[in-house]
């Protein structure tokens, strides 16, 4: 599939990074409330950049899974379900804030 980003540079992720870098550069000039908000915005753009660069999560019907866990349908396969949900959560944290992961989960990424 060809779209705007196929030949035109920079990439979408790079555009996002450019705005994030600008926010970093103006941070020290802002008063404390705006400086905090600028940091939050930089965090948001970091997430967006990582989401753009990563592939999608494995397809999974999370609504059904949530309902089944609540109904006790995963009590017998707890360990396996837990592992699967943890792995998915690790993938999400790696997108949201990679530093938040414990060393064991950072090492093998």
């Amino acid at each position, binding site marked *: 599939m060809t779209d705007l980003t196929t030949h035109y540079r920079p990439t979408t992720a790079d555009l996002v990074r450019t705005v994030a870098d600008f926010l970093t550069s103006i941070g020290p000039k802002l008063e404390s409330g705006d400086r905090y908000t600028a940091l*939050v*915005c930089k965090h948001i753009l970091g997430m967006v950049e990582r989401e753009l660069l990563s592939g999608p999560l494995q397809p999974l019907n999370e609504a059904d899974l949530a309902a089944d866990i*609540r109904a006790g349908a995963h009590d017998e396969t707890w360990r396996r379900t837990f592992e699967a949900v*943890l792995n998915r*959560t690790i993938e999400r944290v790696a*997108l*949201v*804030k990679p530093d938040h992961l414990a060393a064991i989960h950072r090492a093998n990424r």
Partner: protein
Amino acid sequence: MAALPATRSDPTAALRAAVRRRWGNAADVENIEQVTLGGSNRTLLFDLVQGTQRTRLVSREETFAGAEKPFLSPAAQFQIMSIAHKNGLCVPEPLFTYDSNDEIGPGFVTTFANGTALPRRLLADTEHHASILHQLAITVAKLHAIDPALFAFLADLPESGDPIAAMRYRIDNLGEPHPALELGLRWLERHPPPQRPKTVVHGDFRTGNFLVDDGKVTALLDWECCHLGSPAEDLGWFCTRSWRFGRTAYHAGGIATRTQLQDAYRDAGGAAITEPEIRWWEIFGLIRWAMFNILQAHGHVHGRRSPAYAACGRNTALMEYDLLMTLTGDYD
């Protein structure tokens, strides 16, 4: 502290009018300062000026209304703080609630207490941690000892019933499936803590919600999650990993260990809360903090827009991770 924005929500005139309705036309307000526009409240500090007398006061307004909100009305908070104040707790003295004739509110005005609530500053002040823990234990034990019959108006809250059912109700209201949170809730359901006689529970007792001035705890704040339940809930929420602000080995709010908190609470006349009970409520706390993040993102999507609230949605994954790592025993 941000300067008060000159916007249509500038409350100076409304605040002045509200004050004059209570203290007469000679009264005035000066030095208004907005300290927070928090998740559910706007807090303003101001001087009440009466002749040569000047008194610092605090106005707290509800900014987040909606059927799905899990926060008490300002009127209920005012009532709770009045009871707490009468029973000798260190809470700001509630003075009056705004009513329908005020152009500000819903909300209420209290006396001002000196001190900082900033977690980083409190955590850095290690010299005072033992004393702060001791004072907090006395405060919360005193709260739990108040006759719960005085708080009968809280009995119908979902949170005053079964906590797991209440949490599922709150999560379902937000319309997002979260398997990790369901794993946590199912685990809690299969490992129930011992039943305890219900007491009033502060509901948001944590580092960041009390003021400390030179080592002295001057006020317990943020009463909008108060309900009836197990006193262990306040201890477990205080120990929830998110409130350790990086000092993770100091389970109790980054200032003490879990054991030190248990001992201080018992020395202050509180019940003998066990470690497994505190841990149960810590797991509940991580689910609850995740729910609050989903709630803030929900608020953002439904019109209360801000970058901080927007970021909360995806940040939920961080609490889910901490929850699962706590359940595996990797996190203490």
